[in-house]
């Protein structure tokens, strides 16, 4: 089975992670622009960050046979720095049409301040202008009301729910998100967001229509194999292959495919120019080898003494 991780901050991850993901069948990742762990204080650092995720990180992923896409946007935490936020809004249109940009995101609320609200709305208009899907980061705190409010504001701006992926859902938010016609994404992130056993329960209860699983792996203790491990657990626990494929591959492709920037042919039948330049291809697809989940820890064993 092939997998897409539609929310992975690979810029914070090591080559071991890329190797493990490729070996386990992950063919594509979507890297949302996010908060890098401490605030950026200049628009220049923001520009360089966005340039990295559309450039070098895409190249780096390609070396492991993984296709890399991204979303661009001003995140809710940094929206609270008005000077920075104004600068970022000015340069965002330059990035919205770059190759592989599949959405405006991740945007939304953190503390639900006025400034967060202002820049959330401005970015919704930007997404409309460029006809791009929107990836919404729902807040960690006051999550339920923040999620409802995010959807209310989208509708106020006349945005079609089918263009919006609401991320970091849990048991408390999922029903409303699905009922209102949005895509519901779940981040399998240890301790703070979803666990994969709970995720399997959700798939059992709601099915997989408009649901997608991601890892949201970043600089914290997180799991780049979150999508793969959830898929395996779901299969073990009796969820059908079709449903697992929807949640762990197909729905992400359909939702973000509305940008026109992510297509199955990119990994199944890549363009000649890409094969020459930025994509090393996928040995799993070419060689038909059964994907295996490598234990990255093996490569980090101090007993493995030889380095060539």
């Amino acid at each position: 089975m092939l997998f897409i991780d539609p929310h992975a901050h690979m810029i914070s991850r090591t080559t071991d992670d890329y190797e493990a993901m490729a070996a386990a069948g992950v063919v594509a990742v979507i890297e949302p622009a996010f908060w890098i762990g401490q605030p950026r204080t200049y628009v220049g650092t923001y520009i360089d960050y966005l340039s990295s995720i559309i450039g070098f990180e895409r190249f780096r992923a390609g070396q492991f046979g993984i296709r890399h896409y991204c979303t661009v946007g001003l995140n809710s935490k940094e929206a609270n720095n008005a000077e920075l936020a104004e600068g970022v809004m000015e340069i965002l249109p330059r990035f919205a049409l770059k190759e592989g940009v599949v959405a405006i995101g991740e945007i939304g609320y953190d503390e639900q301040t006025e400034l967060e609200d202002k820049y959330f709305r401005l970015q919704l208009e930007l997404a409309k202008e460029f006809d791009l899907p929107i990836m919404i980061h729902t807040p960690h705190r006051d999550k339920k009301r923040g999620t409802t409010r995010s959807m209310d504001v989208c509708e106020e701006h006349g945005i079609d729910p089918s263009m919006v992926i609401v991320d970091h859902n849990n048991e408390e938010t999922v029903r409303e998100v699905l009922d209102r016609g949005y895509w519901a994404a779940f981040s399998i992130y240890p301790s703070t967001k979803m666990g994969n056993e709970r995720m399997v329960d959700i798939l059992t209860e709601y099915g997989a229509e408009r649901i997608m699983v991601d890892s949201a792996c970043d600089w914290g203790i997180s799991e780049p194999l979150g999508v793969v491990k959830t898929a395996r657990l779901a299969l073990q626990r009796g969820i059908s292959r079709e449903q697992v494929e929807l949640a762990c591959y197909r729905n992400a492709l359909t939702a973000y495919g509305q940008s026109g920037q992510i297509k199955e042919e990119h990994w199944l039948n890549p363009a000649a120019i890409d094969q020459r330049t930025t994509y090393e291809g996928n040995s799993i697809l070419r060689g038909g080898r059964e994907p295996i989940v490598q234990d990255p820890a093996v490569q980090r064993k101090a007993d493995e003494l030889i380095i060539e």
Partner: protein
Amino acid sequence: MHATNLQCNLPAEKTTVNAIDLLTDWLQHRLSSIQTEWLDARLQKIMHCDSDRDLHITLGMIPRKLGRDDLQLTDRELAQAEHLSGGWRPVNWSIDTAARIWILCHLAQAEPDRFSNTIADLCRTADLAESIAFYSGLAVYPTSASLDHVVAEGLRSNVKAIFEAIAHNNPYPAMNFSDHRWNHMILKALFIDSSLAPITGLDERANAELAEILCDYAHERWAAGRTVSIELWRCVGPFATDSKMDDLLKVINSGPQRERYAGLLAMSMRQSAAATRILNDHADVYACIKREELTWENVDSFSCTTPS
């Protein structure tokens, strides 16, 4: 081996004007009338608007509107390129690359003084395909010292395809680089496993210091138990004296067949009695070299049969 004409027959501005004609012709043969009309309309908009916004949007839209197929120039078209600018071989260009460069050539022609700033600004936020295009266009932009910094940044890229957009099939480095920058480009090509053969002016720009640096590099590789690219000796041959001659002899006498061939090819570039003596010791291979059957282009696959 075909000699490369590094002479620039035309003033730089004229090259750009003629390149626009060529690119227009090549694109017209490959695009639908709707596509060329779109491109023409976008150009008019860019040229008659003060803000850069239309430029950014157009560059972003080009692959969406025109596709990313290989340009696949005919032999006649490649000859046109060679005639316009000696050593310019756009063999790996795609349609979107050509269209982006077509736009930039128009900008260069209209606002020559601003052009290097425009390019520098575009490169700062370029995606991978844009970077490849912007640097490939150096072959036909008006030459100016102020492009120097942009080119140097491109050469520093870790993305092989961006480096190769400058280094390969492009007369710009041979015509504009100092020996210092030239030598570092050659060394970097070897470092990142890029090939030397497509570098325009490789033999013409070979120099004694480069030969020295390359032999040091070969010794480092040998000391580490790593292989040495056989292409390296092409830049050493004409300057093979003293210890460098010993290095070549080592390659000729102890390496596998293709290394031996490369060593002898390199030796044949050295005009000296000592070199001729060594070549005569390998009469069968030397005969193939003299008949131009064994060349740097086919050294990887050639097999020299002893003449009857």
